[in-house]
């Protein structure tokens, strides 16, 4: 299935966001996630099933003013 991760098209098998994130190399990283513009808390990721065309945002800490 095709999804968008941070704007890039990616092919994933994953049924859930949690699995997809592992597959994408986010395992154990300090990140936060949103799907289609809606926040998905870490504990909930395993319950969120992805659908074709979903927009996934994965963000990490950065400098800010």
């Amino acid at each position, binding site marked *: 299935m095709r999804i968008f*991760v*941070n*704007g890039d098209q990616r092919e994933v098998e994953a049924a859930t966001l949690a699995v997809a*994130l592992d597959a*994408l*190399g*986010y395992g154990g*990283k*300090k*990140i*936060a*996630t*949103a799907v289609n*513009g*809606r*926040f998905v*808390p*870490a504990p909930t990721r395993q319950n969120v099933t992805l659908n074709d065309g979903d927009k996934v*945002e*994965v*963000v*990490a*800490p*950065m*400098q*800010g*003013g």
Partner: protein
Amino acid sequence: MARDFYGVELKSRLLLGTSRYPSPKILAEAITASGAEVVTVSLRRESGSERGGQTFWSFIRGLGLRVLPNTAGCHTVKEAVTTAHMARELFDTKWIKLEVIRDDETLQPDVFGLVEAARVLAEDGFEVFPYTTEDLAVADRLVEAGCKVLMPWGAPIGSARGLNNVYGLKALRAHFPDLPLVVDAGLGVPSHAAASMELGYDAVLLNTAVAEAGDPVAMAKAFAMAIEAGRMAFAAQPLEPRDMAQPSTPMIGRAALGD
């Protein structure tokens, strides 16, 4: 009369941004020099292979300071609210510096989106630090929405212009004698920060003026001192300006040496 930021009493009245420094080392030294107890941070996309965010995260954790995440670059209530939620989870804090921007040239707050986002977030348990203007009517609504701190701009972000509307900032202070007020953005030199405190403001939030100075570490220290100086002066009841002069050296008892 130290002010209470959502139950937290800060000794330092300088909140420092972490962006645009020449190097992490200089950032770390500038933070130390500033004596800031609060640093602002943000979020950005990261791929599975990148490590930048992780590195920055350990860096911040290492500081042992309180972090104030921002919603920089958000133009809609939805973006700001989602970003705030991601920030709360990532940085494990209820504090959020709420930015909802209308215009990319002035980076000025969209006061409508700001008030709505503030309401949504406050109801959701966030402790909101809204980046706003000096507008009293907006300020009233932010307070109604649950904000217990306001952060009016001095001038557009990164402009180094100082206080564009001293009159408006004075009126805001007079309107909210007891609310923590922070001048956020637009300052360029320590005298701008001292002047903000002399108006009775409770703190100053800085980033570019320190980060992009020739010597960010010295500049961080300079701002810290000026802020403390301005605050101390405010409490020490300065002289009112007068139009005419008054001799500092008394005139009585002067020798008569003319012919």
